[in-house]
């Protein structure tokens, strides 16, 4: 692997932070302090690995399960919580200003990635649009249309299917008969590759290659990263209704975090002290983020009128003027 040990430690830490953040978010949801939340448990290597292969000036178009990538790119955990807490300001993140917010409709951000990549191409900027979506999303027409356009225009875009085997209750075998999801690339005339998405180094390496290719004007590619959704679909879901606990248990053997930790331990680069130090550090960072989240003053209700248009239409100005927050 091309990664240095330091880099691997960085990836490991990011995956661990993602998981810890994830657990905290679920806890906050369970106690009524956050809205419905989509956990990325078990698939951190994909989200983090892809982001790690990007440059700051690239643009990320994440799915709703990509806090791993978003945090890596510089979104503040408090911003992420704000988003999941039902506050639009969570997507006005200070970090990667051109990155896209989460796309709630599955797969509809894929055409945006083509548009962003086209912008780069037209401006002759060596930047890449990176779009993450799930196995379920590959059934959407939007994704097919976007891949096709990116292919024929040779756009600097990288599409990553995080194949976690499930789209809510639908296993990937009932989502498509395609041999692999990487084969979706054939329809668009771009290279498609399936990789072990629980191997974070491989994810970084594969994504880096695809990004370099795109940056170099050689066009888009599709990466299928095989992983597994260890948790429920969201906090509103109960996966035991439709899948075997045994299957989930088996998948723990592939856990990307445990794998990476083993590798670091084998390399002599990680041990109990580092692990404990990191966990404490993460816990503290998360606590601080939760505090910032909790301390964020509410948006004044009247601001609900202020971001629909740059030029407030007269009719909306009237509604705004008549608005009384106490009427809710």
């Amino acid at each position, binding site marked *: 692997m091309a990664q240095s040990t330091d880099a691997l430690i960085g990836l490991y830490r990011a995956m661990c932070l993602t998981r810890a953040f994830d657990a905290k978010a679920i806890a906050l949801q369970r106690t009524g302090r956050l*809205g419905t939340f989509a956990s990325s448990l078990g698939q951190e290597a994909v989200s983090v690995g892809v982001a790690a292969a990007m440059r700051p000036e690239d643009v990320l178009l994440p799915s709703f399960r990509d806090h791993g990538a978003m945090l890596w790119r510089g979104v503040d955990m408090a911003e992420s919580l704000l988003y999941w807490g*039902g506050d639009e300001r969570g997507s006005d993140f200070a970090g990667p200003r051109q990155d896209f917010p989460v796309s*709630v409709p599955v797969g509809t951000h894929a055409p945006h990635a083509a548009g962003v990549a086209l912008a780069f191409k037209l401006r002759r900027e060596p930047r890449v649009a990176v779009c993450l979506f799930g196995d379920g999303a590959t059934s959407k027409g939007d994704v097919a249309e976007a891949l096709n356009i990116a292919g024929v225009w040779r756009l600097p875009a990288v599409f990553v299917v995080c194949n976690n085997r499930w789209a809510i209750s639908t296993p990937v075998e009932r*989502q*498509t008969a395609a041999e692999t999801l990487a084969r979706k690339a054939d329809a668009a005339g771009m290279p498609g590759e399936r990789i072990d998405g629980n191997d974070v180094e491989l994810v970084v390496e594969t994504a880096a290659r695809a990004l370099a290719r795109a940056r170099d004007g050689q066009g888009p590619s599709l990466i299928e990263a095989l992983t597994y959704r260890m948790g429920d679909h969201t906090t509103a879901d109960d996966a035991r209704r439709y899948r075997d606990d045994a299957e989930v248990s088996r998948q723990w053997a592939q856990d990307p975090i445990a794998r990476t930790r083993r590798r670091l331990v084998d390399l002599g680069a990680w041990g109990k002290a580092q692990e404990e130090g990191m966990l404490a550090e993460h816990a503290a960072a998360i606590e601080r983020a939760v505090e910032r989240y909790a301390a964020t003053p509410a948006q004044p209700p009247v601001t*609900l009128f202020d971001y629909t248009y740059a030029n407030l239409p007269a*009719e909306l100005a009237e*509604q705004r003027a008549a608005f009384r927050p106490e*009427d809710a």
Partner: protein
Amino acid sequence: MAAVTMVQAINMALARAMAEDPQVVVLGEDVGRDGGVFRATEGLLDRFGADRVFDTPLAEAAIAGVAVGLAAQGFRPVAEIQFSGFIYPALDQMISHAARMRNRTRGRLTCPMVLRAPNGGGIRAAELHSESPEALFAHVPGLRVALPSSPERAYRLLLAAIRDPDPVVFLEPTRLYRAGSEDVADDGKAAPLDRAFVLRPGEDLTLVAWGGVVPMALAAAERLAEEGISAEVVDMAWLKPLDTATLIESVARTGRCVIAQEAARSGGVGAEIAARLAERVLDRLAAPIERVAAYDAVLPYPRLEAHCLPSETRLLAAARRAMGRA
């Protein structure tokens, strides 16, 4: 006869329709083993088998399109869109094909399908999980649009929708799915087609609502009664076509009308109702028609959602204005 919630009533209607008519099939994302994310289709797979209930890939345009094909072949597909916020990709199929198949072929092929979706706000859900797109469908010739507002009406309207030989968009208020329960006889009786329900008679004022705001209108009427105002509450139930006769009869009598809708104010179904009343009973109107609706802003995320959606307070204020008691 047991007390059931709205979502249970919907489940009951689906089971009933499937038991009665082998052409009725249910399809959509996660409608099978999972029973739908709100459990509306729970148990149907076990009871009717995989030939009658099938999970689809994640593709809303195709869900509608497959239903069009099934319907042309004589099936009566009941397709579920997981939330009405994801129904937009299905609009093309509904407008370009479902709504036109009968006309296009002069009745040779028809489209007896139902497109169901959970609808509306009030459950503090994520973005696009609280949409009220009914007006988009209610403008389309060839479609019917229905919204229930109680378990019983859900049961009977859904049966009417499934039995109707033309496409029906059936939007179910998520905020009412489990908001209460009532006894519903599983007697297979459908609600009449295209007919509104007068839920509460009144003399001074007509409150018109549908779907998720109906209970709000009923509560407001109760409150108005305490103030000595007798409000009639009309649940439109069908938004396409509109039961103009019931509307006219009521407003001609009361002379005052407040329309409550969850969708954004401008261009909502409330506008059509107001326009019809202004055309038909202008001379009976003792006060301007009031509309209480979501503001014409992008529906806020949960934190501010309630500030945008209609509230009982706003309904009451409008009613009092209409009564000249502002």
